């Protein structure tokens, strides 16, 4: 049942600052950063967008990505972090979060003789 409300929400959602920066809409990107963050940090919006522009320029490379690159240099750390975080979802509550009701219903362990 989730895809329908999700599709509606995604359609109504504001654009991400990263996407706006990549398309060269820097003013709108700064506005989007402001909507996401703390209002007292509003002057930092331009800096955030500048940081995004720099990152995008640094990573601009049109060659096809290959699987081998995932295991080289800095990207190895990135791969390890993503894999670790993904795998750890199983270990800190995913099972209980998804099967809560059944868990509540479960019979307590009793010593067997």
């Amino acid at each position, binding site marked *: 049942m989730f895809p329908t409300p999700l599709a509606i929400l995604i359609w109504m959602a504001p654009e991400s600052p990263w996407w706006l920066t990549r398309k060269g809409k820097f003013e709108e990107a700064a506005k989007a950063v402001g909507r996401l*963050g*703390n209002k007292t940090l509003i002057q930092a919006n331009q800096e955030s967008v500048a940081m995004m522009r720099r*990152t*995008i320029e640094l*990573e601009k*490379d049109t060659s096809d*990505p290959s*699987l081998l*690159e*995932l295991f080289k240099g*800095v*990207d190895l750390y*990135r*791969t390890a*972090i*993503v*894999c*670790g*975080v*993904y*795998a*750890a*979802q*199983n*270990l*800190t*509550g*995913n*099972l*209980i*979060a*998804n*099967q*809560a*009701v*059944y*868990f*509540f*219903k*479960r*019979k*307590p*362990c*009793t*010593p067997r003789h």
Partner: protein
Amino acid sequence: MHPETLIRIYANDDTEAGINTNLAFALGLITSALQTVFVMLSWILTTYLGRRTIYVWGSAFNTFLLIMLGVAATVPVQSEAAKTAASLAQASLGLIISVLFTLGPAPASWVIIGETSSIRLRPLTTGIGRGCYYIVNIPCIFLSSYMLNPEV
């Protein structure tokens, strides 16, 4: 929530239950409602705390509660009253763990997954990460069938 979870609850009778079906179903609904609220609270939390803080401390605290849940599930019980107390302890810890998971580690982990990889390699990194998730998921599901079914 998994639909199969509900089916299993309807299929189960009361005879061997730790807590009765109506209470379990009510707790399930309460958990889902609280999870929704706590995901929204996590949006507020991220404006005050960094993702690293939320993720590390949230996971550490949840690990501690999971160990407590394990203790409540394995402590030897003799009397009926102690049995009920142990199941209620498990049920409340289960509720607290699943709700806290949606406040801290769960949203933070999706943020980390989405932001860590370089933009050019993002689809590949995320794909490999999802693969890792399933590799760890297999033993977890295998073990959970023993944890959740008294008959196994």
